[in-house]
């Protein structure tokens, strides 16, 4: 598999350019045609893509079983919301106990606020990584799960900073379609380049065989911390986008079940595949809405059931079980989309000499 690009503008590069243009046009079309509800789901797809990709970086590419994602999202969401809300908006939220004075006047535009929320989540990720990455496998999973719950409990109890369990309301709706999808595209590109680089190879070597990786000169601990930090940074960004998408956040949204929602996407898409995570994020996000009818009264032909709230989640649980039993590698396994793979399955004409890879 050659990861180096060849010089002349190849067929792949042209296809990639074409796909990018079509993608951009589609975004314009969607932006002007979708009604508000459809648009919300469409935006959520992009946020879930970022979350799934960032979780896949640690779980899929570096082979660390981490379950702390909800915590990093929460950090990002609260940071971004508190920074981007105006002092007036903040003051009206804090009814039980006034907001800490230093925080009241801290006000940033959306982009810097988003970046700061990523940085803070990344810093906490770095700290947790240095402490917890001495552990492996299920022990690491338990430690990170516990850590994410600690974050939630802290958020619930720091009344003068986070408004406790009342949460934050009236967060400005900054997450437009362009913000959501723009971030998703930039982050996807970043991760594709990262995975294809020498660092990506080092991450994958740790996943495949830690002892061998260490013996081949890869600083395993340093690389794990790096991967964990990048992943937390991205989760923080996604959290920030989510806060300004939902406009209301409270600590209960970030219980560990949120991590499992993302894990579901990663496992369905393929642990270790960027393409898989993107496809699964879109499919799962849309099905979560499309399958809402399962929660209501169902006409089974011979009988009509009463509404069972939460039945659509049973569908996803069943789907997860089917995948784990019959196709453990998920949709894509560890393979990625490439124009070559399209020619292999006959959707594109075959061609002669092999050249560089294209596509997202």
């Amino acid at each position: 598999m050659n990861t180096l690009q060849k010089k002349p503008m190849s067929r792949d590069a042209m296809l990639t350019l074409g796909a990018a243009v079509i993608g951009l046009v589609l975004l314009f079309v969607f932006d002007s045609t979708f009604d508000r509800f459809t648009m919300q789901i469409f935006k959520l797809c992009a946020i879930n893509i970022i979350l799934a990709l960032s979780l896949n970086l640690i779980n899929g590419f570096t082979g660390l079983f981490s379950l702390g994602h909800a915590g990093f999202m929460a950090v990002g969401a609260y940071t971004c919301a508190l920074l981007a809300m105006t002092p007036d908006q903040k003051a009206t939220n804090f009814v039980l106990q006034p907001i800490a004075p230093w925080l009241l006047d801290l006000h940033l535009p959306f982009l810097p606020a988003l970046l700061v929320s990523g940085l803070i989540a990344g810093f906490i990720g770095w700290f947790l990584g240095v402490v917890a990455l001495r552990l492996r496998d299920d022990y690491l999973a338990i430690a990170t799960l516990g850590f994410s719950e600690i974050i939630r409990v802290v958020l619930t109890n720091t009344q003068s900073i986070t408004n406790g369990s009342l949460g934050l309301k009236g967060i400005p709706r900054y997450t437009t379609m362009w913000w959501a999808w723009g971030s998703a595209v930039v982050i996807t590109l970043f991760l594709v380049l990262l995975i294809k680089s020498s660092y990506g190879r080092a991450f994958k070597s740790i996943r495949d065989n830690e002892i061998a990786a260490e013996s081949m000169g890869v600083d395993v601990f340093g690389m794990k911390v790096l991967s964990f930090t990048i992943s937390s940074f991205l989760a923080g960004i996604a959290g920030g986008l989510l806060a300004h998408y939902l406009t209301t956040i409270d600590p209960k949204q970030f219980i560990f079940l949120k991590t499992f929602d993302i894990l579901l996407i990663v496992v369905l898409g393929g642990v270790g595949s960027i393409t898989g995570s993107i496809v699964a994020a879109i499919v799962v996000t849309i099905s979560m809405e499309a399958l809402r009818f399962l929660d209501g009264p169902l006409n089974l032909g011979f009988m009509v059931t009463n509404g069972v709230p939460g039945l659509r989640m049973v569908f996803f649980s069943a789907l997860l079980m089917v995948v784990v039993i019959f196709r453990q590698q998920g949709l894509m396994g560890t393979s990625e989309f490439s124009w070559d793979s399209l020619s292999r399955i006959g959707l594109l004409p075959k061609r002669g000499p092999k050249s560089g890879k294209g596509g997202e």
Partner: protein
Amino acid sequence: MSSLLQTIEVNKQFGGLSAVTALNMDVQPGEIVGLIGPNGAGKTTSFNLITGVYKPTSGKVMFDGKDITGMKPHAITHLGVARTFQNIRLFKEMSVLENVLVAQHMRMGTNLLEATLRLPSYMKKERHVHERARALLDEVGLSAHEGNKATSLPYGKQRRLEIARALATEPKLLFLDEPAAGMNPQESVELMDFILKIRDQFKLTIVLIEHHMQVVMGVCKRMYVLDYGVTIAHGTPEEIQKNPKVIEAYLGVE
């Protein structure tokens, strides 16, 4: 001449079990040294102690004049020590070429920014490591397989890939853990030639564990014999073959 590798009274205990007792090895630059002994004698443990996988309970490991006792494996590799594994440890989801590329990561001296933005400085290094990886694969006769998954190779070729990967770290000292395991006599002879060839070509010093006596006696000028973690003999192949203690360890005594 100063030693390249010296272990001074190295001990390793796992709980009450002494896996290695008073290991005193001395390896000169350019030598090929054998490490033999019955199963469970502590040969691989010795390798693990020197390459940093285990920390010695006591004693000192000196490499190239530096004390490397208790250093992390990747730091030791950085100083110029490489190894292969008895139970092959390839990066199984990665291609043959990528396996060799990973081993050059530490020597690339790149940073995250440069690598993800694909700056020209990085692309130059990337081209260089690709060329070198291909040259190494050519050396071990795996060029035709560079795009295949590492685990799709037959056993003998996986062993050769492990050696290519170890060579990619630019070692001065190479540890081979049972390189001839599972090879037929013909392949073993080829392996002996190959070991001598890479020693000269890459100016290596080699320490190898091997059960295949023909191979050990053929390439090693000196050898150490371990039994229950204790060095019971040390000398040239001829001396070792006549040593009563060695015969006793291998064949038992009446």
